[in-house]
């Protein structure tokens, strides 16, 4: 593959939790402007992989390269300073804080030692308008918002903090059809207008084909399948996962040990 244009490259990434080796040597790459769909069964380690790329977990082996340079991420803040932004499955929103404080969480605008609430409010209103997200009031605590609105805030936060790359962990989970369409549309626009490389963890394979350029299957701690979506299909992906399940059943489920 074209090594030079990779925005992110993971080589042989290993992550263990105690005796459990969740990632056993993951090789993965995302080019500039590319949207990579990451699929895999529950518990395959997709979220772990994402969190290892963002500095939340430290890898136990392998290396991660960003724009060709090897990085040793020690914290989420460090990954953010390199332009890697994540929308976590749990959204990382603080229920007790207002929409605009969540929007700028850990990237607050200040005047001297004080928060510049006015500016953050104005920016938040502008971002949400740009995204076409309708939220009753940006002073509202996020606890009062619907699932889709919360998701939209989490995505907006990642996008507008000068993201060079976006990692989205199940951005469409637990969302109604209308809200899901909103987020998919948003991802599509980010891809077309800003060419931001993304990794998307998705459960619904049809959605992979809506927005992704390439699809990877994470299984047994490794990437076992890597194809452009043009050469893949929903049926193939489904078969891939289901066949494994059948095989596991026939061999007496030896893997889950």
């Amino acid at each position, binding site marked *: 593959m074209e090594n030079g244009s990779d925005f992110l490259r993971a080589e042989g990434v290993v992550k263990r939790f105690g005796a459990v080796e969740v990632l056993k040597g993951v090789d993965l790459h995302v080019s500039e402007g590319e949207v990579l769909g990451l699929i895999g069964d529950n518990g395959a380690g997709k979220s772990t992989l994402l969190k290892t790329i963002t500095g939340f977990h430290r890898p136990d082996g392998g290396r991660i390269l960003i724009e060709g340079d090897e990085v040793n991420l020690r914290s989420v803040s460090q990954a953010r300073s390199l332009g890697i932004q994540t929308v976590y499955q*749990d959204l*990382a*929103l*603080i229920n007790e804080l207002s929409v605009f404080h969540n929007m700028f969480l850990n990237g607050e605008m200040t005047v001297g030692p004080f928060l510049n609430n006015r500016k953050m409010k104005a920016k938040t209103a502008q971002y949400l308008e740009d995204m076409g997200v309708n939220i009753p009031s940006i002073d509202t605590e996020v606890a*009062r*918002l619907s699932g889709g609105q919360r998701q939209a805030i989490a995505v907006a936060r990642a996008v507008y903090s000068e993201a060079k790359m976006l990692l989205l962990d199940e951005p469409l989970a637990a969302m109604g059809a209308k809200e899901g369409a909103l987020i998919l549309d948003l991802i599509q626009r980010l891809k077309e207008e800003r060419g931001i490389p993304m990794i998307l963890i998705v459960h619904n394979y049809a959605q992979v084909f809506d927005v992704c350029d390439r699809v990877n299957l994470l299984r047994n701690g490794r990437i076992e399948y890597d194809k452009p979506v043009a050469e893949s299909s929903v049926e193939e992906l489904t078969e891939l996962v289901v066949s494994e399940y059948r095989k596991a059943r026939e061999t007496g489920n030896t893997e889950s040990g």
Partner: protein
Amino acid sequence: MSETTGESTAREASGTDTQERGFVGRLLGGLVRVREVSILIVLVGLALYFQAANGAFLSQQNILSLAQYAVPYVVIASALCLLLICGEIDLSVGQSFAFAPIVMYLAYDKLFLVLPLAVLVGLAAVAVVGLINGLITVYLDVSSLITTLGMFFLLAGLNVTLTGGFPATTPETSPVTQILGEGAWSGTIWALVIVAVLQLVLLRTRWGLHTYATGGNPLGAREAGVSIARIKIGNFILCGVLGGFVGIIESFRINSIDPLAGGPDIVLLCIAAAVIGGTALLGGVGTVTGAFLGALVLTILRNGFTLQGISAYTFNIILGVAILLAMILNVYVARLRGAGRA
């Protein structure tokens, strides 16, 4: 669209909470919430009641003694408030309250340091106490309830050991001692300044915002890159230092350094004050203003009952009921708001 409409009706149905906050908040620059207003009403009601029952309550002399008596509770409750909001607790702060003046005294009396320097040594000692509380809690993953319970006994023992169990007299009067509590209103001024600064820090700085975030959703805060270890340890240190500082002020006021000044009473009362003022023991919610008002309510209750000749036992009964009512109200309000969620 139906989504949005449903949302707004739900919010209206969730009661006066939002509206009142909007109105009062605008009136006072967003610094005060409905919870503080309700406790302020309680406060005024209590003052009127005690004044009606005993004309001496609002006499100049009693107001001064109220103001002086409230100082340690106000300061410790406010400092604890930040720690509670970030999801931790410090049971040892009452002992820091006694420990700082003792260390200060030893530095002054035995090491012959000038008083301002001795004060700094005392404050450094309680800063270290806070740091240790924080490090054990954050990095060794011990619940702060246990960490600071251990620290409570450790300091209680140290306080008695260092002084031989006897109270000492504070250094003789000087401008420094006047400023640090000996002057009639100096403690009160310190307390008001500390409350104002803490409230400003909590509501208007990144530190405050991250304190809320750390207590409200620790995992989410970490995922967003907030250093929750730094926030927690910092608030432990803040709590220890302010507890020690107000201990020094109190010792100058009463001209005595008492190794037994920091019993369990003071910290429990301050936790009660913070809780009555709307601080959630589980973190994420609360304000310094609330803790301040809560501390004033408790002070007025105790002082008012004393003036009426009602015993400390009765006071405890009333305090217990007040805490229970405050907590029930908390749960009730939370349920109302929960009903407002989509």
